[in-house]
């Protein structure tokens, strides 16, 4: 049966499936689409995905578990939108998300996605951990609850709960303290930002999460927000205004160049270390921020920055977007995007793979371990580098 309520029905047939969506800017290879890189079947490219969605809408094929897996294997990295030469390119991901909206409505999403969404709804985080454990990451940090400080520091679900990302969350808090940035935190009152909920197509839950956060922020008088995660940054900057939440949001890496310039942060001193930087999709392609993290890294004494061949608009996603850091629809292979990215980073000869996103941090550190590269390249969040927790 045709699904007439699909809102991109007048556009989706315009994808020619020419394959440009798979390439980076310099055409180096067809594996810059994470899900295509992982499976190398046309169905997993975004062209193939759009043709399948259209076939489902037209009633040519039925919604199946496998179709749901294919639709949810897109990590929303926007590489396709960068490369597609056609005028509707900016709607490619919207077309995928709109299909997910319908899958959610029909209750036919992959089991891991369902669990992710239920966990956010019930516990305020995708891991299904207790909300009273949310502030564990702050232990020993002496952080103030948000009252009327200039900034709210929003650590996000990954920074609060993921054992590896907690280090980055804590490092950033110490860094902000050292720079005497006036900030407060929400502790156990913080809840998920909803960015991945939006990407996974659960509109109702997104609205609920956004309204809850906006309501709390307004009640507390929050005007400015610093985020650890580019995903949170994207949600607050680009999604929350839809629900009446207009805040001045900064990803922390955007503050660093000024804090360094003002002498409030002293860049660390390293001993002839080479660093390569991985652009997080929600900072780079989604929000066009490529300079600030690099400026911060270039300020580190004794370090030199080496770019991976695929950087900025061409950066290969770690594969963690759209909740895939949890749902893991692209894992289990040497062609998993995080493992490809780890190899690309290692190929530069860098000692450190710097990231600016808790998702990328966990995805890439795991990948470096699986690749057996942990003695050769360390994965560090920029906040950790500046906080001198480099081993």
């Amino acid at each position: 049966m045709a699904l007439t309520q699909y809102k991109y029905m007048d556009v989706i047939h315009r994808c020619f499936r020419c394959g440009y969506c798979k390439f980076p800017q310099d055409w180096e290879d067809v594996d810059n689409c994470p899900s295509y890189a992982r499976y190398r079947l046309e169905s997993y490219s975004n062209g193939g995905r759009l043709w399948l969605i259209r076939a489902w809408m037209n009633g040519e094929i039925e919604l199946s578990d496998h179709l749901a897996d294919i639709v949810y294997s897109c990590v929303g990295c926007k590489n396709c939108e960068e490369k597609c030469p056609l005028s509707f390119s900016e709607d490619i991901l919207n077309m995928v998300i709109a299909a997910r909206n319908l899958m959610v409505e029909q209750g036919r999403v992959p089991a891991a996605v369902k669990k992710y969404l239920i966990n956010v709804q019930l516990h305020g985080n995708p891991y299904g951990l207790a909300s009273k454990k949310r502030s564990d990451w702050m232990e020993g940090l002496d952080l103030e609850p948000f009252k009327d400080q200039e900034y709210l520091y929003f650590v996000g679900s990954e920074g609060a709960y993921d054992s590896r990302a907690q280090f980055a969350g804590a490092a950033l808090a110490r860094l902000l303290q050292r720079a005497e940035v006036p900030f407060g935190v929400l502790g156990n009152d913080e809840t998920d930002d909803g960015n991945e909920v939006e990407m996974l197509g659960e509109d109702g839950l997104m609205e609920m999460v956004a309204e809850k956060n906006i309501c709390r922020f307004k009640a507390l008088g929050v005007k400015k927000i610093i985020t650890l995660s580019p995903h949170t940054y994207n949600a607050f900057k680009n999604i929350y205004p839809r629900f009446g939440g207009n805040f001045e949001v900064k990803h922390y890496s955007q503050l660093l160049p000024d804090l360094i310039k003002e002498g409030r942060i002293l860049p660390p001193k390293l001993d002839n270390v080479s660093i390569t930087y991985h652009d997080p999709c929600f900072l780079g392609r989604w929000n066009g921020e490529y300079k600030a993290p690099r400026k911060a890294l270039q300020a580190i004494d004794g370090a030199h920055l080496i770019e991976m061949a695929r950087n900025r608009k061409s950066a290969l996603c770690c594969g963690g977007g759209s909740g895939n850091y949890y749902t893991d629809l692209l894992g289990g292979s040497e062609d998993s995007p995080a493992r490809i990215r780890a190899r690309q980073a290692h190929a530069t000869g860098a000692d450190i793979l710097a990231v600016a996103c808790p998702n990328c941090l966990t995805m890439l550190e795991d990948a470096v371990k699986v690749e057996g590269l942990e003695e050769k390249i360390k994965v560090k969040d920029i906040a950790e580098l500046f906080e001198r927790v480099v081993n």
Partner: protein
Amino acid sequence: MDSITKALMDIVGEDYVSNKTEELFTYSKDLGTSEPQWPDYVATPKTAEEVSRIIKLANEEKLAVVPLGGGLSLAGLALPLKGGITVDLKRMDRILKLNKIGRFIVVEAGISNGKVAAHLHKHAPDLMHSEPGAPAAATIGGNLAIHGQGDLAHPYGFNSDMVNGMEVVLPTGEICQFGSCALGNDWYTLHPLPDLQLFMGWSGCTGIITKVSLRLFPCKKNIEQDMFIVEDEKLIPKILYELTHVGMAEDLVAISQEIPPPFNRLHCILINLSGDSKEELEFKRKLIFDGKLTKYIQEGSGGIGAVGQRVERPQVTKTSDWRKGGGFEYVGAIVPVSFYPDCYRRGSEISQRHGIPYTVLGRVIGSGHGMMFSWTYAFNRADEDTVRHAREALHETDEMVLEMGGTLWKPAVFGQKLVMDRMDPNTLQMMKKVKHLLDPNGIMNPGNWEVA
């Protein structure tokens, strides 16, 4: 799980086989007007050995095998007309060797043209290969399987004339090499051994090309596109004759199209020039414009459209969106350059009859030895009526080409039949014998180039 799926998984790995509806649907569809044709299995091998094992399995099971590269022929040449296994070759994409001094590169045949171009740009910026006008995802092997041409066709001919060696998996599973590589030597020449060229232009009916040594050519530091415009199509053959005499251009294309309207009924000759210095470019420009084109300007029959434009990479995809509908298909034919006026006139008449804005293009091959002429018909994938019109226009064009004495290039099955109907009977019988000798079970891309 059925036994064939399991056997395929044993060969290429579990992740790289599917018999699920979603993959079968995806591989049943061509980008052009062809009706869907469903495979029974899809497999994506990584090595020639895996291809060989798939083919041996297919022979045992009497299953069709359809090789697929970028899937961009638009003529349905990689559709499984009789079901079977679609073998997507794009995982076979390694660059095996770059010999700069010998000017060749050895690659696996599933590699994209984009990847080859990017590799050369990075590692040998003074070398280039002839890149087809297709999207960058078009594969090297796929292009050879259809006798493709590219942006170096004027100086060097067909892409299939630029091969220094090949590895092919035969329809019975043997892995064969052709050229100097067959002697265990480097991949530096296809000649002068006895001619066994039975694979290019066959659309995979006689074997699967798995490795290719491609000739590379000088890539100059600067490249520009100039445009000369005339109103009278009858001038085109003469102008191209004169320009090919000068021999300075890297690519020569004459194009006429209804959209955008200011260009309607005009004929634009696109001249790609390259040079390592401004002086070299200026010298070439002078020979072409001052030496050959000024007279047309003086007599009022031609004018300069543009000089020194940046050469954009092939963006042919945009043609698919002319009707906001994600589709186009074209008939390609190899014709004498002198055919241009007729090709244009009759092609635009067919377009008009079917309510499709006309687009015709002729790319010079060699020193004016021939021309690849294309008639493009855009359609709206969501509007079956426009698809039908495009399909009918394509069929009419196929017939028109043969009637006027042209030779269809990479024809769809409809055009293949027209070609074979006109073919010398002895030649046709030889095609049949070759096919039967190589493919006794008739498993390779059946339905294509099938002699009755």
